[in-house]
């Protein structure tokens, strides 16, 4: 990536001001504002920002539905409980799903790190482990959906309480599960590219035609951590609240 044109020759990438002075000078430079971020990183962050708004709107409609209904809202702690033997564990499956997703975030961060160390094999392995944990998560979600559908939960009603519960549940967890599934597909594609050495040889991407670099793994990581981040909010508001 070439450096951006600087109107003030005394400001170089080495002595750019930090902190708030940096924010002011970056944004008032009448040039590219994100000095340190490459196009990849800037674009994934803006995509994630827009995706944040989409998920916020889902959670907001959930809040609105739950606050405005006269019917009692189904108790998530009971609805999502799991029976093992004679004991009932509240939210057990959801808790396991949370731990699986956090573990996958950890392996993703390792993949990014090994990528920057140009450790081709370990990066690919960590990407595959992350994908495997992602599949586990989606599988458990499918199990959860099946269980709830068998119990009579539908988008238009359910036996436990407020009829909006089903619509909100399928919409929010479905959209999140879709994100995880898309992430898994991209993780597998990326693992293949890393394994083949695309980011060592700089082989251009099939879609962007840009030179392949290990930064791509970090960009993938930003998306994957975002999916984990969204789950933190869904877990708090939908399952625990």
């Amino acid at each position: 990536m070439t450096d951006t044109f600087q109107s003030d020759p005394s400001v170089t990438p080495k002595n750019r001001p930090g902190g708030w002075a940096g924010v002011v000078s970056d944004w008032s430079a009448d040039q590219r504002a994100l000095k340190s971020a490459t196009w990849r990183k800037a674009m994934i962050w803006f995509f994630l920002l827009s995706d944040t708004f989409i998920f916020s709107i889902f959670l907001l409609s959930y809040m609105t539905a739950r606050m405005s209904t006269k019917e009692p809202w189904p108790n998530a702690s009971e609805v999502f409980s799991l029976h093992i033997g004679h004991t009932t564990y509240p939210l057990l499956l959801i808790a396991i799903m949370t731990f699986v997703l956090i573990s996958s975030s950890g392996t993703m961060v390792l993949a990014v790190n090994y990528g920057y160390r140009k450790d081709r094999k370990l990066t690919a392995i960590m990407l595959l482990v992350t994908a495997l944990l992602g599949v586990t998560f989606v599988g458990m979600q499918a199990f959860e959906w099946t269980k709830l559908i068998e119990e009579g939960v539908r988008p238009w009603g359910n036996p436990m309480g407020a009829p909006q519960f089903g619509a909100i549940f399928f919409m929010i967890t479905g959209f999140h599960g879709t994100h995880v599934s898309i992430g898994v597909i991209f993780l597998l594609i990326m693992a293949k590219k890393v394994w083949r050495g695309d980011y060592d040889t700089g082989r251009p991407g099939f879609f962007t035609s840009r030179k392949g670099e290990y930064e791509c793994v970090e960009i993938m990581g930003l998306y994957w951590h975002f999916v984990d981040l969204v789950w933190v909010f869904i877990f708090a508001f939908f399952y625990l609240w």
Partner: protein
Amino acid sequence: MAHSNISKSDGIVAGGTATDSHQEHPLKVYFIVWGLLFILSLGSYMVDFAGLQGYTRWSLILFFMFVKAGLIMAIFMHMKWERLSLNYAIILPLFAILVFIGIMAFEADYTRATRIEFFNADQ
């Protein structure tokens, strides 16, 4: 590459800003955060397991949620090492959501009041 003159140990620069987009940090910090995320998740699960209710429950849920979100964004997503210009470009727009929450809470409250008023009238 502009990166080439930066050695590995320069990944974390004094003042908490990265000199470029190359995000390579000691593994230790990731393992610490990974462990913290497990502990915090366990904490938020325990809120439900212990059956806490009311404001204790809600404030604890929000506490664990924000700490987890903060750790993921700061360390896993490397915001701690990015330039502030990028961080604020992403974080400041999110405050619009708070305004939206306020508007919809007000609206939902009103809807509920009218439902109670009119739907209970015929019973």
